[in-house]
């Protein structure tokens, strides 16, 4: 087997400073081969964005290594295109200008015509030629996400990282875009890491699906290979027993981890440090006699009535 293009070795990552530090990801190890389509499925808030930001080079792991071609990743690079979860288009630039920003910085030596042709090609690829001159706020959510995908594709990077690219869209638009992107991928066969919260989407698109288990901190679960033949037809695949089995396997893995994390959490209950207030005396300007809330820890003496 050839050397993996991307690999993570025992990577951990947390947020917050020393005292209030919470670990989000622990002991993540993964290898992605060139041309492979890997999907990571996880619950919301389990650390998916954190994971992909480390691959993109926007975050540094606390421990462990993130390698590209065997060399540590020190920052973002043109070899890794990223599609952000919230599109992150610059609102003051048109569709063309947003993509041009990427093209200009990745291919600075190209002539103006070469760049324009390149940009137009990718806008056409995501079927947005008519909206090329529009600003992001004039586009629908699905169109914005297409622009975001086109921007990443136009960088012609070796690896494409996508952070829940379709999660914010309605089911129908989502299905359409899944088919479009799947088609684009089949013609280019780039290495793809696709983050999603939808098990069906992951199985439909990927060669290999890895659940991000919602233990606290999250860890990667057992990878599931998807041997389904391509192109995969979404309506036919729904009745495919193999697809159903894979889906059950994946969902069970995720649910089991959730159950486990639920039972292992234990919390110490602390009663509020406050005693009932006597509200029978009115508390107005004239009657400043009533005391404020009393705290048990501040009471020096406690009188107990003892029945004699």
């Amino acid at each position, binding site marked *: 087997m050839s050397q993996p293009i991307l690999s993570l070795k025992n990577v951990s990552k947390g947020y917050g400073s020393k005292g209030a530090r919470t670990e989000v990801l622990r002991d993540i190890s993964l290898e992605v081969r060139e041309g492979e389509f890997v999907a990571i499925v996880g619950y919301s808030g389990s650390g998916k964005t954190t994971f992909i930001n480390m691959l*993109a*080079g*926007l975050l540094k792991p606390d421990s462990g290594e993130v390698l590209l071609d065997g060399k540590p990743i020190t*920052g*973002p*690079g*043109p070899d*890794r*295109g*990223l599609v*952000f979860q*919230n599109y*992150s288009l*610059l609102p*003051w*630039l048109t569709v063309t200008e947003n993509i041009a*920003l*990427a093209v*200009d*910085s*990745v291919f600075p030596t190209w002539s103006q015509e070469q760049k324009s042709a390149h940009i137009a090609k990718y806008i056409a690829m995501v079927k947005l030629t008519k909206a090329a001159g529009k600003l992001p706020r004039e586009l629908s959510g699905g169109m914005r996400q297409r622009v975001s995908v086109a*921007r990443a594709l136009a*960088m012609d990077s070796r690896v494409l990282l996508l952070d829940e690219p379709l999660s914010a869209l309605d089911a129908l638009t989502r299905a359409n875009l899944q088919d479009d992107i799947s088609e684009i991928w089949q013609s280019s066969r780039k290495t793809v890491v696709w983050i999603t919260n939808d098990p069906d989407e992951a199985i439909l698109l990927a060669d290999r699906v890895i659940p991000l288990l919602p233990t606290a901190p999250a860890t990667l679960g057992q990878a599931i290979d998807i041997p389904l033949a391509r192109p995969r037809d979404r309506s036919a695949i729904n009745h495919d027993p193999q697809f159903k089995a894979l889906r059950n396997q994946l969902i069970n893995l995720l649910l089991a981890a959730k159950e486990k994390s639920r039972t292992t959490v234990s919390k110490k209950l602390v009663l509020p440090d406050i005693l009932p207030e006597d509200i029978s005396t009115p508390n107005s300007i004239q009657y400043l006699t009533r005391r404020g809330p009393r705290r048990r820890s501040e009471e020096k003496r406690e009188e107990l009535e003892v029945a004699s």
Partner: protein
Amino acid sequence: MNLNLFQKFKLESVMLPALAILGCCLIWYVIAGKSVTTVKTDDWGDTVKVTKRSGISADLPTPVETWTASKAYITDPFAKRGELDQGILRFTWLSLKLVAQGYFLALLIGTPIGFLLGLSKKFSMAFDPIIQILRPVSPLAWLPLGMILFSGVKVMDAGGRTTFGASDAAALFTIAICAMWPTVMNTAVGVRAVPQDYLNVAKVLKLSRTKTLWKVLVPATLPYMFTGFRLSLGIAWLVIVAVEMLTGRPGVGGFLWQQYNANSFAHIILCINVIGLVGYVLDRLMSLAESKLKTA
């Protein structure tokens, strides 16, 4: 029904301010001194007219007196009868020209400082105390320093007349240094408030520093910057009066001070009204531009 409501609303929005203005004028009238002319016979048997002013504030002219005394300046607003006797809009124009120069100087200096403060923690840490100390200093305090700083400045035209002297430089300096703080502070806040998402885009796309500045930071900060620009303009207009008074330059402020010394108190009130009105118009224009920018 709807129309009725609209009419009522419109009527109120006109009537209430009108009533308030009328009320103020009434109070003004009550406070103002009134001239009483009495005819007396003096010790030699001649009849003389003695005009005495009396009232709560005897020297304050009444609204009517103010109007009659100011009429010439308002009805002929562009007249030039002498260096310090010009129509009120001519004076306003002179003041506005100076304000514009000082104001653009303020923006030119203030905006980059704001960016540096917003971008660099170290720079911000180093200069924050200085800025906090200089910010509240009054224009009256800056002007003498400006005079000293630029005492050597003298630009003469072909005829040997000074076209730009120390007092001009000091005036510009004072306006600029007083007016730049809102721009500095708002720009700094705006730069710090640029969403992390946009910065991440810049990083992932590997934008150069200049590209990041012009394509990401400046557009993202623009609404904040504009708020600063608007506040700065207000201060520049506030400062001009003080500067003109101290330097004796022709302009609304200079005219005000000169009329005070000449005991033409009615003209002072005229000046105050004009200064206020111009300030209001400038602020309206700027907020119009600002809201255009925010919806754009």
